[in-house]
């Protein structure tokens, strides 16, 4: 092993301490400013989705700045249009949906009483009423708070209309310079490893978010179109709920289907409409499981299902919806970094020793 002068080693250690301190302090500063950090994180997620489009536009013969302009105008339109057009529709839908809650509650209580009588007749076991009342109380609280705050969430996005495109524009325009600046600060001893792992991390995160975004959009479009074709009320709201819940692995599609099924049973009873909606959700999720997921998502994330569930729970606990979305690629990235450290500590050292 080549010996290096002591002062030079000390200099390198100082650079390493400085570098990691800058990263750590930047992370703390961001976390202490949630109003900036949340749209910035969202902008970064969108930046990861959009940045691969710039080289594609450049291949069509546009310059870098022109490509950036085209992308930015497209982004502004696609962000402003849904908010101007869809927010009032979704808000109206969610307001109306609140009036349906007592109707749905009444239906569930009636059905529970029927089941209770049936169970008592057949087995002699008496079911307590509190099972139903507790469940309804919990569900009512969750649904009311979701619907009550939905317009508020949407209204707070108005602030994001200005912030997110601004952040995205500068990330797309000056992201490369920022990257160069961070790499310029990186000490020589970890430069190659840091650069490569950082690149892999961003790639995994970007690919996963893009794939998940496409997957959720496909499911949302199928369900909204299907509900609209079946002439079911709140098609847009239910489609939006199904696409948001689709982000949660395994249980997400079921959670997404529950409000629609209860609403249909309460409104139209168990009949053709219920069958139609049930079939629609099964078909939409079958398309997702059989086609969309294997093609888009599964190749990107290769982590154990238990780790997927744990990472989603932890992500939602600490960072809410965004935590839920980024938890899986984050877990995949942690696995990547862990594997790299393991290789550095054990595999490479073993080959050195050999």
């Amino acid at each position, binding site marked *: *092993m080549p010996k290096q002068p002591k002062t*030079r080693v000390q200099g390198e250690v100082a650079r390493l301490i400085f570098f990691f301190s800058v990263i750590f302090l930047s992370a703390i500063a961001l976390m202490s400013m949630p109003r900036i950090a949340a749209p910035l994180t969202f902008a970064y997620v969108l930046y990861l989705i959009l940045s*691969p489009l*710039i*080289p594609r536009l450049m291949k069509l013969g546009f310059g870098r700045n022109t490509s950036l302009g085209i992308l930015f105008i497209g982004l502004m339109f696609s962000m402003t249009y849904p908010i101007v057009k869809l927010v009032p529709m979704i808000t109206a839908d969610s307001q109306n949906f609140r009036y349906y809650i007592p109707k749905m509650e009444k239906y569930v209580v009636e059905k529970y009483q029927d089941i209770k009588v049936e169970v008592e007749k057949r087995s002699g076991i008496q079911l307590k009423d509190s099972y139903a009342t507790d469940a309804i109380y919990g569900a009512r609280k969750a649904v009311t708070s979701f619907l009550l705050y939905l317009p508020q969430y949407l209204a707070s996005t108005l602030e994001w209309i200005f912030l997110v495109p601004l952040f995205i524009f500068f990330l797309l325009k000056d992201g490369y310079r920022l990257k160069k600046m961070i790499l310029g600060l990186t000490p*020589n001893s970890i430069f190659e490893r840091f650069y*490569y792992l950082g*690149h892999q991390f961003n790639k995994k995160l970007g690919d996963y978010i893009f794939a998940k975004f496409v997957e959720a959009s496909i499911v949302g479009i199928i369900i909204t179109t299907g509900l609209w074709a079946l002439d079911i009320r709140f098609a847009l709201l239910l489609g939006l709920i199904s696409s948001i819940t689709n982000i949660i692995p395994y249980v997400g599609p079921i959670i997404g289907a529950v409000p629609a099924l209860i609403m249909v049973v309460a409104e139209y009873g168990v009949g053709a409409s219920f069958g139609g909606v049930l079939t629609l959700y099964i078909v939409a999720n079958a398309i997702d499981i059989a086609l969309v997921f294997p093609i888009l998502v599964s190749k990107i994330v290769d982590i154990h299902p238990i780790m997927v569930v744990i990472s989603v729970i932890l992500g939602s606990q600490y960072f809410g919806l965004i935590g839920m979305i980024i938890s899986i690629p984050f877990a995949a990235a942690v696995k990547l970094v862990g594997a790299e450290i393991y290789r550095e500590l054990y595999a490479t050292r073993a080959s*050195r020793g050999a």
Partner: protein
Amino acid sequence: MESYEKGINTKVESGQALPEKLDISLLKYFWQASPIAGSRIDTIPKFLRKIDVLKNFSDNELRVLSQWLHLRVFSDSEIIFKQKDIGVGLYFIYSGQVDVKVENDDTAEENIVLTLDKNDYFGELALLQEGSIRNATAVSRDTTQLLGIFKPDVENLIESYPVVATKLLQSISVIVANRLFSVTQELKRAKHKLHQMEVDSAKTTKN
């Protein structure tokens, strides 16, 4: 000093070879005196022009390539990378010198096998191989400036500037092919020497 035109005419008349590029002294003077010409943006492409394996690049392609290179400064005796480390980058020596050391498997001592100078390059295999292991240790001599290009840059370059990326990979292939040719020649010589020694030893045993 005779005029440029006169000089060219003299060369044409006497049948001498003409210069490949225009060489107008006054124009050249003003061009070089330009404040933009002295900036780093301009000096890196100029430096790259001197590298033999990049000769198939046009000036604009070199300018594009220069934007993807990372300037790294290493102090005297600083390790650039270690033998058996996983590598992801190719380096061009912008200034200074680099010692290439190989560890002896038996004694674990490192011997300098090569000293690379300005305009030389090393680490090209790391750009092509997956999980490439460095074959030698590279240590800087004096303060050394290196221009590095790494796997992520090549991946991005392929997406953004496919022609430049193709030319770069072609250049790296040329480097690797040349190295492979030298190794094959070396192996041939060693084989021949071994055969000769076997023949000699057989003769000695007979006698």
